């Protein structure tokens, strides 16, 4: 939709072709590009016409009959406008869009219709300050920056954030009062501008309505039941949700009765531990392993005790280490055997 305000640009039709250049053809040890005719100047014989040539015409010269504007279906456009207006009534969305609305008494903010008769900016500023809306204006003021990019040389030097949008019913001077305040935009309720209601396609602009503008909304867009008077045969689109209180729906008896029980997420071990090394993991898999290990330790202990008792009986000094005990046992066993023999 932003494309609709564009002005056409194009290269001159004649650009690059204002020569009688002709190709020299083959056989002259030069490229076959058309060359400037004539003589007496360094330009003669130079390549011409091609987009690769110096002073040649560009590739695909831009034309004015480019499609500059975009048609949007009327109903789609109205749907968007209506959605943007609805979004401006939700403080969460307005704040998410970035407006400073924490000091406002209420969202949507509706002001008495006498604001439409304001003529001085002083009064306008005073009103904004009283409403707590001036924070948004100040945010906008502080955000004035030089545009990055070539636009700065093309009369689009500064960029500024959007502040409040003031919507009025009848302009009795309000436009002139508010228009010089940085960031503030104005709009008549009878011709709401979607580019202002949802700048950049993001809904939730901070809107200040005049009372009469707010009242006029019903006649502009229709209420849910009654058709609009200012638009022929138009009514508000049906809501996607009849009841938007999702928390209440979720926690209602009807839903909870049909809901499955909470799934217990299976504990997935990050690493498989080796049961042959890790005792706890082994016991988890085979609880009997504890008894087995204990029995093994006990039997080894009693075996060693029996061995030392044996050695003591045979008159061999018992060694501390089992390996040494074994070594001691071997010659001890060999000695009585030899003695027997």
């Amino acid at each position: 939709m932003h494309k609709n305000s564009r002005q056409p640009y194009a290269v001159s039709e004649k650009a690059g072709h204002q020569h009688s250049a002709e190709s020299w053809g083959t056989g002259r040890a030069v490229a076959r590009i058309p060359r400037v005719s004539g003589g007496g100047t360094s330009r003669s014989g130079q390549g011409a016409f091609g987009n690769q040539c110096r002073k040649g015409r560009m590739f695909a010269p831009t034309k004015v009959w480019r499609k500059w504007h975009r048609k949007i279906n009327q109903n789609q456009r109205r749907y968007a406008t209506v959605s943007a207006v609805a979004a401006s009534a939700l403080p969460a969305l307005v704040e998410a869009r970035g407006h400073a609305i924490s000091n406002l008494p209420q969202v949507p903010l509706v002001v008495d219709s006498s604001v439409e008769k304001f003529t001085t900016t002083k009064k306008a500023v005073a009103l904004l300050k009283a409403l707590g809306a001036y924070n948004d204006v100040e945010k906008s003021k502080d955000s004035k920056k030089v545009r990055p990019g070539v636009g700065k040389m093309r009369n689009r030097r500064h960029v500024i954030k959007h502040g409040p949008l003031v919507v009025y019913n009848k302009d009795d001077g309000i436009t002139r009062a508010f228009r010089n305040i940085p960031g503030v935009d104005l709009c008549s309720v009878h011709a709401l501008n979607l580019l202002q209601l949802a700048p950049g396609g993001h809904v939730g602009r901070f809107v200040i309505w005049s009372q009469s503008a707010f009242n006029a909304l019903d006649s502009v867009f229709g209420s849910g039941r009654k058709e609009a008077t200012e638009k022929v045969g138009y009514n508000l689109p049906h809501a996607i949700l009849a009841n938007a209180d999702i928390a209440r729906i979720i926690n209602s008896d009807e839903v909870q009765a049909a809901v499955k029980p909470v799934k217990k997420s299976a504990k997935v071990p990050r690493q498989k531990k080796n049961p042959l090394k890790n005792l706890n993991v082994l016991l988890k898999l085979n609880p009997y392993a504890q008894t087995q290990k204990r029995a093994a330790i006990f039997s080894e202990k009693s075996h060693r005790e029996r061995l030392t008792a044996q050695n003591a009986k045979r008159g061999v000094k018992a060694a501390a280490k089992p390996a040494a005990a074994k070594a001691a046992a071997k010659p001890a066993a060999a000695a009585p055997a030899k003695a027997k023999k």
Partner: protein
Amino acid sequence: VSTQSTWGVRFFILLLYIREMSASTKTPVPESVAKKAQRDSALSAAKIKSAVEAKKTNRAFRQAICKRAKQYADEYAANQANLVRMKRQAKNNGNFYVDEEPKLAFAVRIRGINAIAPRTKKILQLLRLRQIHNGVFVKLNKATICMLRLVEPYITYGYPNLKTVRSLVYKRGYGKVNKQRIPITDNKVISSVLGQHGIQSTEDLVHEIYTVGPHFKQAANFLWPFKLSSPLGGYSQKGKHFVEGGDYGDRAEEINKLISRMA
């Protein structure tokens, strides 16, 4: 933080909120909040109850496992002792005791996947040896012995002992659960699939495999093909039969040494 404790915490906070709301300012508690508190309390009570019950059943489960494990340990020891006794008896009487032919084999794929004849390829697929160093337990009967013989140059196989079977299942054991390769970190992994055949723990599984029980097929198939490492210390010669001093083919009891280097 377990789900049980967060339920309890949430419920507790809700109770406090309700108490505060109704007592201090006399503002009515929103119906949805009251309902949620009610629901949460019921849920937490149910959870505590089920936890207590689960603990009881788990205890019984583990006691049964212990009992069966002891049975198996006694069985293995008895079989071993019996074997020794029979051999000694035969020797004393001047006879020979002929060992029972092995019922269980463990086959490991030795060679890679390139340049394989179609029949060999198919047999290796049937044996679930699709990757090098994959190992599977195989029940030995005429059919499988012929299959192993046909793919001999690509595998090495032998008769695993109890220690080998145990170490494979414990260290490298993964089960096929819902077509996924799940590590055997809990007996529930086994019992969920093989519980219907009376195999509920790793010891049951090891017993079924080692003694080639009535549900060997299901037990062995439950086990995903073992992904073994290359043997520490290397092969001698993959291109020759074990009998020739190489590695492939039937190597009987020597498979245990190889597996201890691979697992």
